[in-house]
């Protein structure tokens, strides 16, 4: 059980920079998700932690140990591959026993540990079976068990649920989380699915284009995104970002949203941080809107998606395209012009040029 320290980690492949300035501290026993779209550098980071790739710059430490030069086979790292990489020419038993055999553990002890692990993962009846052709659910447990039996300090999982049916994913997420709690491993989990990250991680590290954008608890990253990218990436649908201009009105800053009209005055802490006349993005989450008869953002409804329990209403266009989520009884019709009221405490403002959030947390 070890903490992981990534210090100024970077990697270039030829002229392509896959990762730069990655600084991250992962506490002992913590479950951290590396979240981001394809090519953001999350897999590269993890492969460097595992020792599959050497960093171009920076350092990786497990606790006090500098891992530079330490080969893959000696890092004490558990790794679950996206396709599980089960040794399909071996039985379940042989898969579980592989690491113990490879490191010279005596047969009696090996046998005991394999049976214990199989018991724990409910794999006991399958021990003698060939591992080829087993269901994905079993393979996931086998993959984890195979690594966990070596009692690694650190567990790395590379998008293990991406090959799984959507129906099963929820079940397997819970199982994974349960296993992590049981083993109390330090876990690093790579995914592009923000829902997975939100439900499983203690902390999320959001990455894009080789850069670490924000680290924080799921709620933290969700409620207080540090950039336009993070705001849009988390949540389904992501945060609405309407382009506007800040204006001063009666001691407070409001945002002029063009055709949508003028926003309500920004709360005090934002008002203080947003300069006047700045080009900004006015952000609010789809679930934080309310239809009102009174004053608010006026937007024409362009499309109504009724998907069972929820209804997603698409409004506006171009710079002021907005989606709002309501329950399924909302009486909206295509073409109507509605008025949206948004609680100021739910508003976030971003600099239109840099994409960075303006103003501190609430």
């Amino acid at each position, binding site marked *: 059980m070890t903490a992981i320290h990534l210090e100024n980690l970077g990697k270039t492949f030829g002229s392509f920079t896959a990762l730069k300035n990655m600084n991250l501290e992962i506490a002992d026993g913590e479950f951290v998700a590396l979240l981001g779209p394809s090519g953001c550098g999350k897999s590269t980071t993890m492969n460097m932690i595992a020792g599959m790739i050497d960093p171009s710059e920076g350092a990786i430490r497990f606790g006090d140990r500098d891992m530079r030069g330490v080969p893959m086979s000696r890092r004490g790292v*558990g790794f679950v591959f996206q396709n599980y990489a*089960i040794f399909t020419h071996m039985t379940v038993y042989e898969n579980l026993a*592989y690491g113990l055999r490879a*490191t010279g553990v005596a047969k009696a002890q090996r046998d005991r540990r394999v049976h214990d692990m199989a018991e724990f993962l409910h794999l006991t009846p399958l021990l003698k079976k060939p591992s080829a052709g087993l269901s994905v659910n079993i393979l996931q447990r086998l993959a984890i068990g*195979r690594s966990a039996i*070596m009692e690694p300090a650190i567990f790395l999982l590379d998008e293990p649920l991406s090959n799984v049916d959507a129906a099963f994913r929820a079940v397997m997420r819970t199982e994974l989380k349960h296993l992590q709690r049981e083993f109390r491993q330090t876990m690093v989990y790579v995914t592009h699915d923000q829902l997975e990250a939100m439900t499983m991680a203690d902390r999320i590290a959001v990455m894009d284009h080789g850069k670490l954008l924000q680290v924080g608890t799921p709620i933290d990253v969700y409620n207080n995104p540090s950039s336009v990218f993070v705001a849009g990436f988390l949540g389904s649908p992501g945060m609405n970002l309407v382009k506007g201009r800040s204006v001063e009105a009666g001691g407070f800053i409001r945002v002029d949203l063009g055709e949508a009209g003028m926003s309500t005055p920004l709360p005090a802490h934002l008002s203080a941080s947003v300069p006047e006349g700045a080009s900004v993005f006015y952000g609010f989450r789809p679930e934080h809107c309310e239809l009102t008869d009174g004053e608010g953002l006026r937007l024409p409804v362009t499309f109504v998606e009724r998907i069972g329990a929820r209804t997603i209403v698409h409004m506006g266009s171009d710079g002021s395209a907005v989606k709002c989520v309501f329950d399924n009884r909302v009486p909206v019709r295509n073409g109507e012009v509605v008025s949206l009221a948004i609680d100021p405490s739910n508003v976030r403002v971003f600099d239109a040029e840099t994409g960075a959030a303006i103003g501190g947390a609430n």
Partner: protein
Amino acid sequence: MTADILEAKAEPVEHEDTRDSRRLGFSLTLPAQLLILFIAVFPILMQIYISLTDWSPLDGISWWQAHQLWNGFANYTDLVADDRFWSALWRTVLVMAICVPAEFLLGLGLAILFVDNFPGRGFLYSVLLVPMMVVPAVAGYMFFMLFQSGGPVNDILSFFYGAPVTIAWLSDPDLAFFAVIASDIWQWTPLMFLILLAGMVGVPEDQLRAATLLGASWTTRFRTIVLPRMKTIIIIALAIRVIENFKVFDNFYIMTGGGPGVATETISIYIYKVTQQELIWGYVAAVALVILISLSVVSAFAIKRMSQSREAG
């Protein structure tokens, strides 16, 4: 990249089964069937007939009149007592027992060296394949020239030995045997290399990485993952080489003509010589039939076992 043979599941192919398609399918396969008939069925029937006679083309009668020289199973009993035949057969097996493992080990070693990417890999790979593509008869002549008493092999040996070496390789029974084996290993190691490399490259990299992360050393990985997953390919490679090596003729014949004496006479050379020199074709037919039947039985047996283990595994 080759798909890993163990993961490839054969999906049952549904064939169209209408009268039209059956007719078309029949006529499409007809030429091939006829050719086989021509080269396999008729010859075998002919051979059965001739093998029961004492016929030779020198007798002046056409082959279908060979019944005049009927001698029953005399040829077959002669065969059992024919020392030259059995020693040729034994020699062929000996050649196989030396060449095939040597080619396999060298080919495997090369495959191991070539499995990673490294600068020049593609070019060196093509160069190493060249021996396999040389016309075998020409390869035989190359090695004939190499092993001349005044030739390059002795030249190189002289260099290392410090004094002139003038071994008459092809005149000494044991040395000639060695020389022809060398020519076979030279020519066919690339084939083993080609097949084994294709198989080795198909071993899933993720599994190798997983094994490494679990603490396995290179030799452990090779033993527990690479070789087991190459099992089918290894069997195919060995089977192909064993079959071709058994039939060997061209380079051996050109290098030594089967000699000195019969020191390098393999079964094919033996049959050739008896056919062309002694011209007792009735006898040769018996020999040929015995070989064909034995091979048919052995191969049918082997193929059956292989398809059985395929279905089970």
